[in-house]
């Protein structure tokens, strides 16, 4: 009798397992939280050092166009403009293609065709960015050079390379959002006598709009943060782009070019950290935009 009472009153083996599981999960979450917070704090401290220690002005950093930290010129506007230029341009080219491919995969293609495309898209995601950069350097840059003149380096070459890189991201997320449109929407539309085309662009695309916009923003975030491939084709001249084929530099390309040539704790190094902070803030903004779209865009 006592034995049974004992067993019932004490936590069972399963309870112990439960607690242990909880402990491990919390530990992992805690570790990741500490990691993320320390990265944020670290970049923020270093990124602000230029303004606190070296006495530079934030307004100079954001709005001036002369970048030469070695000589105390810290205008980052050329990089900001170029980063947004390549990002917007590549997303602009990639989105129609991505929507077309996604529509084909979800609405038209036979199962095998859709699967085949899926494999190709996954393959495109998996290709390392240095390879995109090499192809850009070997094919895109000379092509731009022969067609438009100049050196071939610039926003146009960068946007073309990024177009290929963000296409799979936008496509696969768009596919997900198209698949998430409830089946009865399609059925109801067809039952009302709408053609397939009318169903697609009046019902399916409308219902999937928040998802597609999210896909585009994710693609833009990837384009904005891409460093290596862009650095190889952008030309890396820290000046305001005069046109799409004049050499310029993005935030990321300036970082990868400069970091090996600067000394920790000096102004040129701190200036690079400020660029990194700017990148971090921008990616947070992209995330916020995604959240906003998800909340506001839903069909009611």
């Amino acid at each position, binding site marked *: 009798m006592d034995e049974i009472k004992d067993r019932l009153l004490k936590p069972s083996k399963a309870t112990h397992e439960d607690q242990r599981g909880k402990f491990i999960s919390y530990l992992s979450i805690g570790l990741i939280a500490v990691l993320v917070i320390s990265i944020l704090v670290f970049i923020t401290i270093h990124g602000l050092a230029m303004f606190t220690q070296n006495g530079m002005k934030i307004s100079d950093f954001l709005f001036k166009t002369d970048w030469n930290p070695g000589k105390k010129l810290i205008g980052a506007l050329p990089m900001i403009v170029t980063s947004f230029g390549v990002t917007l341009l590549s997303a602009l080219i990639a989105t129609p293609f991505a929507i077309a491919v996604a529509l084909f995969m979800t609405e038209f293609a036979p199962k095998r065709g859709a699967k085949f495309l899926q494999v190709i898209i996954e393959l495109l995601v998996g290709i390392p960015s240095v390879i995109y950069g090499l192809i850009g350097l070997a094919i895109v840059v000379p092509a731009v050079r022969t067609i438009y003149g100049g050196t071939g380096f610039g926003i146009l070459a960068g946007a073309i390379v990024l177009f290929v890189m963000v296409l799979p991201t936008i496509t696969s997320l768009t596919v997900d959002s198209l698949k998430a449109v409830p089946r009865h929407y399609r059925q109801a539309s067809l039952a009302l006598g709408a053609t397939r085309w009318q169903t697609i662009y009046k019902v399916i695309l409308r219902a999937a709009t928040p998802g597609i916009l999210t896909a585009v923003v994710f693609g833009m975030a990837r384009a904005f943060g891409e460093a290596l491939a862009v650095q190889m084709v952008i030309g890396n001249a820290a000046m305001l782009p005069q046109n799409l084929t004049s050499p310029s530099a993005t935030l990321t390309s300036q970082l990868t070019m400069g970091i090996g*040539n600067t000394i920790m704790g000096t102004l040129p190094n701190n200036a690079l950290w400020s660029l990194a902070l700017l990148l971090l803030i921008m990616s947070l903004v992209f995330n916020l935009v995604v959240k906003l779209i998800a909340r506001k865009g839903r069909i009611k």
Partner: protein
Amino acid sequence: MKKILILVSSLLLAGVFIAGCSSKSASDSSKLTIVGSTALQPLVEQAANNYQDENSGTSITVQGGGSGTGLSQISNGSVSVGNSDVFASQVSGVNTKKIVDNKVAVVGITPVVNPDTGVKNLTMQQLQDIFTGKITNWNQVGGKDEEITIINRAKGSGTRITFEQNVLDGKSAIKAQEQDSNGTVQKLVSSTSGAISYVSFSYVNSKIQAVSIDNVKPTDANVKTNAWKIWSYEHMYTTKNADASTKKFVKYVKSDKVQKTLVKKLGYIAIKDMKVSKDANNQIK
């Protein structure tokens, strides 16, 4: 549950393993880590390979990262050797008191142009005017009627510091596109019409035209007598209290064995062949 336990324990094991490795390399003196200049990297890598063949107890890791990385890593003591194309005192922010300079080779740097410009010789003044933006067309210096496209190396790159110190005379270069290695510059100059840039001697090939300055040709012989002025030392910086195996390896790189064979084979100039020497302020002795 089991899976999680396995995962966690394997992670812990991995952590212990990594920690073990790093603490070992800190205490075990026969493991050398060398970082820095990409211009010097091929020589040090090759020398390290040969050295390890002869001394099986030593393991040497050679990494690039740039002269800046090399200098900052050695000045805070986190590596065995920091490679640099420039004197530590030429770079602000490096604590030169803690480190020792070892010059291991000399590199000549030459301006190069795309062959279609039709230019084979420039005066020092013309070269300066091109990089400061006063001359913008090749026909102003006796070439074809074609716009000049300047390709620079990244700010702070050793090659660029050396080039600007010897050519620009304190003036600053106009803004132009920047590339981060000799190799990319070589490819770009050969494929872009009207392009001018500068590379170390070993990167000159038949597709790009090396330019003489004031009718002096960019050759090793001219560097040795300082008739050709654009050259720099390759430095291997160590800490003042470097351990025995670090000193031994640096000594090996400076020995005749390396200087007479590898250094020449890889396109550098041996220190002993130099008839002049330069200090950090670019003064010739």
